[in-house]
């Protein structure tokens, strides 16, 4: 037994009591969907967790009608302070049920419990708490006095941070006075459905939030529904494009938070050990299922070998396995489909001449797994340097000068995030100025906060989530076009 062999320390599942099946959350009640129900599983074991309803067009129609009724009759007539109080209630209920939500999230998503417990769920509560306080202060959101809600917001979220993305969407929408129809990702619906129970406990008026589960067709029905005033989408750039096309000419307001291929730039004067931690966090956090992941390491040429060697050493200490084990660093890939995509791209990387390396790592027999992998000798033209892999795969490239680092970092249609590691403040600020990225982390990576706007340049989408910018995405100026 080496010093790395820990005894198993699994978090108890007893705190989560899943029902055998879940309906749609419409107008304050769980109801059956008209589509064919689908099973939802644990990606770590492929264990069946529950049966989930599919919302068809008719169900989406009912959800939008419920949201419209709630908007017209209840939510738009409430004072800002009362809206805020509901959000404060929700924040507290999330805190009270935090462990349950964390376990459910790790079960359904495959992410390590230490991440769902210490990052996802605390941030969910923080997001509701932050926007709760905005609800009666909209005059200060930057749109002038008496800004108006947009109406019914249709929101579609991804599977990588299921409940956190729900919070990013619902909290500002409700604070601004909108009502919501939200579609969780097909592979990770459970925490959204537990959240619906929280809404019942908070006594949120029926119809203010409606949750419709299903696959792409459900999302399409929501995007195309004429009764929706605003679409907010987080997901792939390909789907984002489709949504932008589908909403063209409809007058629907649109915010898109899409893909990324972030550069994490390590200069030779960086505190290397800290930088290694940041690089590891940047790409292996949440199995690399992160749109802002630091998936391209740009390392200054003279420290390349040292950085790669230390990176390999650090990777050798990462523990991959049971997401519910408190010692686990790397959990399961969320789905077979995603695993196939990672395999396809890494195979392409190898064919194009890059050299993969993974630490010795035993993968569980069941479920979807991919060992943490780094590629050296990656060309800027290689697919693994250009396309979003959305997995625990790091592509390492080199540069000589800050100008070259900026040029390489910006050499992508994406522009979501970037990282800079250096001990020199003036260099950090100058490089940050040159980067076309919506979020720049210097000497840190993958930090999130409800007060801090998040969103991309170029094909990473438009609009911001978080901060007052995130609030204004759900508002129109008084007497505005809406």
């Amino acid at each position, binding site marked *: 037994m080496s010093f790395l062999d820990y005894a198993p320390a699994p978090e108890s599942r007893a705190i989560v009591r899943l029902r055998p099946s879940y309906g749609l959350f419409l107008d304050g009640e769980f109801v059956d969907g008209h589509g064919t129900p689908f099973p939802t599983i644990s990606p770590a074991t492929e264990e069946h967790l529950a049966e989930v309803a599919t919302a068809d067009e008719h169900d989406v129609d009912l959800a939008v009608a419920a949201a419209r009724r709630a908007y017209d009759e209840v939510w738009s007539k409430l004072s800002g302070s009362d809206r805020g109080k509901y959000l404060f209630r929700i924040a507290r209920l999330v805190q009270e049920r935090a462990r349950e939500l964390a376990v459910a999230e790790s079960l359904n998503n495959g992410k390590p419990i230490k991440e769902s417990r210490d990052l996802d769920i605390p941030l969910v509560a923080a997001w509701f708490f932050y926007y709760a306080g905005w609800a009666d202060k909209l005059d200060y959101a930057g749109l002038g006095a008496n800004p108006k809600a947009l109406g019914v917001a249709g929101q579609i979220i991804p599977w990588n941070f299921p409940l956190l993305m729900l919070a990013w969407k619902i909290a500002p929408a409700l604070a601004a006075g909108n009502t919501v129809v939200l579609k969780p990702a097909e592979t990770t619906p459970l925490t959204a459905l537990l959240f619906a129970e929280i809404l019942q406990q908070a006594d949120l008026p029926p119809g203010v939030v409606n949750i419709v589960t299903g696959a792409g067709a459900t999302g399409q029905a929501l995007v195309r529904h004429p009764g929706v005033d605003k679409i907010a989408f987080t997901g792939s750039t390909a789907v984002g494009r489709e949504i932008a096309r589908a909403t*063209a000419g409809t007058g629907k307001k649109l915010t898109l938070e899409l893909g990324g291929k972030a550069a994490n730039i390590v200069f030779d004067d960086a505190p290397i050990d800290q930088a290694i931690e940041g690089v590891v966090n940047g790409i292996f956090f949440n199995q690399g299922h992160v749109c802002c992941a630091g998936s391209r390491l740009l390392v200054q040429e003279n420290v390349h070998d040292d950085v790669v060697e230390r990176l390999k050493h650090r990777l050798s200490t990462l523990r991959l396995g049971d997401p519910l084990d408190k010692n686990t660093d790397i959990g399961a890939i969320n789905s077979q489909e995603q695993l196939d995509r990672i395999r396809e791209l890494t195979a392409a990387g190898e064919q194009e001449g890059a050299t993969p390396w993974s630490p010795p790592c035993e993968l569980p027999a069941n479920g979807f797994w991919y060992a943490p992998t780094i590629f050296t000798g990656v060309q800027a033209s290689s697919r693994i340097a250009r396309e979003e892999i959305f997995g625990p795969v790091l592509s390492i490239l080199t540069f000589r000068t800050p100008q070259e680092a900026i040029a390489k970092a910006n050499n992508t249609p994406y522009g979501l995030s970037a990282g800079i590691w250096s001990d020199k403040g003036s260099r950090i600020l100058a490089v940050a100025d040159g980067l*076309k990225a919506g979020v*720049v*982390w210097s000497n840190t990576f993958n930090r999130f*906060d409800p007060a801090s*706007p998040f969103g991309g340049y170029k*094909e990473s989408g*438009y609009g911001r989530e978080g901060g007052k910018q995130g609030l204004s995405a759900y508002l129109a100026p008084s007497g505005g076009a809406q």
Partner: protein
Amino acid sequence: MTRLAVPKTYKLYIGGKFPRSESGRTYEVASKDGAFLANAALASRKDARDAVVAARAAVKGWAGTTAYNRGQVLYRIAEVLEGRRAQFADELVRTEGLPAVTAEAAVDLAIDRWVWYAGWADKYAQVLGNGNPVAGPYFNISVPEPTGVVAIVAPQAGPAHSLVGLISAVAPALVSGNTVVVVASQAAPLSAISLGEVLATSDVPGGVVNVLTGSPAEIAPWLASHADVNALDLVGAGALDWVQLQMDAAETLKRVLIPEDGADPAAPSLDRIAAFTETKTVWHTKGLL
């Protein structure tokens, strides 16, 4: 005996120069009552692409100037416009058939708008940006930055649209450091080319504003689908198939402003500056003392 006038050749304005259309095409510009005024260049797809190349090349320099400097250059444009007040009024009278008094008032309005926007250059970031009180030892600040290359279909109708509408659409995009390719009023393109002459003599680097004359219906689709255009202002595209243009723009996820059909399209507002900016948020660790 009256002096024989020397009429001007109205050409395109691309990259700080005044080329003819590479296609060799022109179209007749007539006054309201049908009298011949000029043969304006009928810009082609290639002209539009040349304009985008020039605009892209100019982004780094223009966005890289200090806000104070950019404000002064924009103010300088207003100064030079003021000096050519009579010329612009005359062109409005000839192209749009406005009474002289109305035309002069429109020129004054256009100049005053330009001054208003010039003053925003070193302020908009303070109003739109902010420091963020994040829950941790980080310095965290959000600042708006220019989006890049903005393609504009200028207003095509309404009194004095060919100058006031044009300037109202172009000026806000420039404030933050974007560069512009603008498709002028098809029926009344003279003011737009004269504006190019003003820009060429106002310390505005070549390529920061590029003016195309001709058919918006022909040129706009090339701009909407061009991968090196970051944003599309369809303020004057109401008579075109603008929904298709918005769909074309979705291919590279351009930021899009939709057509306005009110009496004062692109009326002055901070929103028009904000529409073509990107918020960048920078986190920096704070160390222990």
